[in-house]
């Protein structure tokens, strides 16, 4: 008890101390933050893991620091970032057409379909200027107006984890997946340069917790075994150079980049908000080429790409060649050809196993896209080819028999989008070289000012294969799925918004979780109310039913049964005075399947943010308690984090979670962030399992970040 008390007092002390020193940021990004928080939470729930969202979210930070000129064609970025829907985009273009350039940002309120929330979000990310996007780039300006930024971050779990315990060589060789060969710290450093969003360049390096760095604890035997995988330095290095709007050359990318076209069925590297809330955003607006500045280690391109545009036509060509992680199985003794049994997507290289798989094969991707775009219509064609340096042969199983295997894969597809003031059609049809089709088609319409709806049908053949597909769907694979989605968004009363959707889906082949074709549905309702200028709340109800194999041990064959997750989430946030922001949240989760007892989970928290106006510091604190019967009724809760880091941990079992995040701005150029969080369990003495096992009741995470701008 004494220890706990001390910890708590320490916490309060840190709170008091840092509040005396820390900074308030420039923009009030509250509305934008809330939008993103919710979408990232959904994404975490869908993918059932806390992935690296930096790749997806750093664009929002970039554009809030390098605003978009509302009077230029760059407003398409607002659509690409899903900050406005297609109708609002069309209305914005129409407004400019009839009334000329924006002179005041308050004019946004007069644009058709812009409610208060949209106006707030857009305001935080645009500025008013004359259109310079066609101007020539001068080296002098690049030097004078270019911005440089260095971000350095350290993070660590403070409790000792089992995988870091000293182990003998024989122990490491016996259980090669259970011992981390590196240190428990995570380090990341990024440098970036930008001249507006016209020229961007930079590099990034990262070492995850458990990965080897300059010092390590590896014996000579292990070193010899690792061979070239035994290295000094960071685990990941990346660099990017990106330029846009240089005459006919619309975009050019060197180094790491992301590429996305159409609705993501044929080619969409990087992450995307799959099935998220805003019905009117189901229609994707692809960004084409964009720089990849994050340190995420999977699903991106490394090489060169260029987009040229002439009148209504544009054409993109790209080439990528990079080493990827794969599980190398026995080499064929006859012709010495290499074979791999799976591709690894985590980007972790901590254990002997992971290190041996590191960069095991090369992946080459090349292809292109041609597009024709007029005011309302866009049509595109994409073709690309993937070539692996080794044959991918999966461990044979019923569910994976239509998965991609072999060395090469070709995909091509046609996408279109036709948007008018009150409706938009969109779709994409794709084909892989085994002659399997995948297609989706949708309509989104706004019959009157306060209501819009979206209908989408998708049918992805069970044999359709793509390594870079990221389209709308229940499963992330984009294969073997048929479904229909219907979503409505309405604001019939001032300050009230209702969002609802239903999605019915059918998996046309077995999945790794369900050993027969299966089906399910997803219902969602969200009510948002702006109580006053300073306060709003939302209530989310959701019910999702899917099928997966019964875990009943008394039967001989696996057969799928239904399981249902019902959730209720209530969120309220309000501002007190000018400096204090408070929020509460309560989550209730109910899990049910046919052969187990029900389980339920509960999460409740208080958020307090102190952001004194005109002061260089801010402080955020959360106190939460949670109680879930088991892992099935776990709850995903977004947590505020240091800039460029996003965490949506899931909590389960019983206990409490607290964190404190401080921000301090020094001399305008340097911003420091620090965050300490602790989860304390009351019903278990061991946390996690395998190499990340912690013996004890609590887990403490620390992050420190410095951002230097010049």
């Amino acid at each position, binding site marked *: 008890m004494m220890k706990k008390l001390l910890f708590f007092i320490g916490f309060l002390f840190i709170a008091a101390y840092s509040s005396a020193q820390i900074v308030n940021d420039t923009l009030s990004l509250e509305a934008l933050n809330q939008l993103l928080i919710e979408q990232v939470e959904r994404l975490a729930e869908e993918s059932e893991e806390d992935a690296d969202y930096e790749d997806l979210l750093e664009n929002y930070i970039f554009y809030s620091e390098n605003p978009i000129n509302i009077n230029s064609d760059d407003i398409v970025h607002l659509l690409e970032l899903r900050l406005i829907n297609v109708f609002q985009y069309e209305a914005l273009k129409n407004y400019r057409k009839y009334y000329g350039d924006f002179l005041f940002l308050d004019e946004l309120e007069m644009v058709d379909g812009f409610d208060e929330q949209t106006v707030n979000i857009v305001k935080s990310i645009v500025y008013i200027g004359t259109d310079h996007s066609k101007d020539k780039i001068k080296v002098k300006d690049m030097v004078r107006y270019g911005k440089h930024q260095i971000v350095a971050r350290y993070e660590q779990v403070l409790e000792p984890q089992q995988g870091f315990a000293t182990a003998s060589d024989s122990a490491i060789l016996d259980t090669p997946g259970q011992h981390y060969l590196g240190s428990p710290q995570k380090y990341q450093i990024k440098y970036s340069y930008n001249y507006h969003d016209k020229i961007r360049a930079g590099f990034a390096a990262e070492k995850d917790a458990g990965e080897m760095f300059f010092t390590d604890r590896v014996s000579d035997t292990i070193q010899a075994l690792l061979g070239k995988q035994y290295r000094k330095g960071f685990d990941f290095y990346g660099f990017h150079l990106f330029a846009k709007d240089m005459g006919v050359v619309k975009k050019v990318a060197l180094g790491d980049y992301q590429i996305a076209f159409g609705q993501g069925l044929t080619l969409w590297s990087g992450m995307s908000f799959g099935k998220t809330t805003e019905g009117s955003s189901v229609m994707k607006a692809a960004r084409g080429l964009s720089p990849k500045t994050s340190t995420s280690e999977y699903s991106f391109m490394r090489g060169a790409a260029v987009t040229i545009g002439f009148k209504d036509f544009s054409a993109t060509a790209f080439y990528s060649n990079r080493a990827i992680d794969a599980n190398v199985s026995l080499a064929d003794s006859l012709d010495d050809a290499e074979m791999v049994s799976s591709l690894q997507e985590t980007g972790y290289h901590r254990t002997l196993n992971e290190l041996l798989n590191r960069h095991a094969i090369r992946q080459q991707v090349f292809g292109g896209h041609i597009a024709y775009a007029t005011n309302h219509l866009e049509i595109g064609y994409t073709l690309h080819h993937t070539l692996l340096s080794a044959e991918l042969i999966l461990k044979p199983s019923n569910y994976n028999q239509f998965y991609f295997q072999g060395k090469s894969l070709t995909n091509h597809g046609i996408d279109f989008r036709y948007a008018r003031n009150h409706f938009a059609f969109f779709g994409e049809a794709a084909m892989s070289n085994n002659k399997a089709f995948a297609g989706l088609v949708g309509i989104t319409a706004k019959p009157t000012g306060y209501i819009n709806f979206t209908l989408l049908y998708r049918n992805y053949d069970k044999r359709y294969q793509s390594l870079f597909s990221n389209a709308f769907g229940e499963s992330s694979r984009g294969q073997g799925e048929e479904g229909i989605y219907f979503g409505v968004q309405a604001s019939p009363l001032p300050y009230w918004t209702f969002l609802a959707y239903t999605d019915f889906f059918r998996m046309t082949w077995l999945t790794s979780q369900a050993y027969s074709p299966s089906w399910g549905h997803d219902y969602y309702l969200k009510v948002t109310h702006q*109580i006053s200028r300073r306060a709003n709340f939302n209530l989310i109800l959701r019910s999702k039913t899917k099928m997966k194999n019964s875990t009943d041990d008394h039967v001989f064959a696996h057969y799928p049964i239904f399981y249902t997750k019902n959730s209720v989430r209530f969120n309220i946030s*309000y501002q007190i005075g000018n400096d*204090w922001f408070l929020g509460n949240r309560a989550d209730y989760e109910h899990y049910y399947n046919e052969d187990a007892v029900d389980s*339920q989970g509960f999460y*409740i928290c*208080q958020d307090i943010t102190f952001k004194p106006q005109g002061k260089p510091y801010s402080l955020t604190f959360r106190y939460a*308690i949670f109680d879930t019967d088991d892992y099935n009724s776990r709850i995903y809760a977004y947590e505020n984090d240091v800039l460029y880091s996003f965490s949506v941990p899931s909590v389960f079992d019983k206990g*409490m979670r607290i964190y404190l995040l401080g921000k301090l701005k020094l001399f305008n150029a340097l911003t420091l962030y620090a965050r300490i969080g602790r989860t304390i369990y009351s019903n278990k003495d061991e946390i996690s399992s395998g190499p990340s096992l912690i013996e004890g009741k609590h887990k403490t995470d620390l992050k420190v970040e410095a951002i230097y701008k010049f």
Partner: protein
Amino acid sequence: MKRTLALIIVLLLAGRLFAYDIINPVGGRAAAMGRSSVASQGLWSILNNPAGLAGLDKMKLGIYYENYWMLDATAYKSAAFAIPLNYGTIGLSFNQFGYSKFSENKFGLAYARDFGRYLQIGLQLDYYLLNAGENYGKKSAITFELGIQSKITDKLTLGTYIFNPASLTLRQTINNEPLPIVFRFGASYRFTKEFLGQLEVEKNTELSGCSFRGGVEYEAFKDFFIRAGAQIGTNPQNQQGILTFGLGYKIRFAEINIAGQMHQALGNAVQIGMIFSFGK
């Protein structure tokens, strides 16, 4: 003996073991409104959400009594005293559940303060004493509770309350038996001058599931109040609901509130509370 046994059975039925009943909201007004109270003000806030003490206008003394079956062993008693000063309100509280062979007691010293129109904060230091009879002895804990209230519009007040946020445990026990954390938040909405509604959710870490509470209050005649409310739980062992109703009457120097509860498993109970005001 028979009575005690019956009591134990009934309490088990209710899904509540012995301890921690004393963290329930008290006061005749709360009792009548499904025990919703986290966003209310007044003297009994001292035990429900000390932030609600911040706006206290006069020195006040209150007593409260509740009993399900009218047995000595199941009586629940509270007393509170609070005085508004220049720098906030301070108060003392005491509540007790049980009888000589088994009782739970809590003594509190509270302080609450207004931080402008929008924010009230309250803090109470507690001494908790569990007296489990000759064979089990006494167990105690020192802990604290925190509350926030915010009147975000003229009509809407929000409240948050946490009992034992640092998860302090009982002393004199072998495994450091936990004292629960109780977390509540909710809102009070004044529809009209005469009509008010309240809603809140509570999580008690020693009970599975959570509770939802709601209540309404209507000032039918000047200073005469009619109240009703309900509480429901999601605890699989304790999904029984409680329906409540009550009356209140206020005169210049005192107010009296009575409430009746109908619990699906435990039967009916009566609560009564009185508050006396001193000074102008």
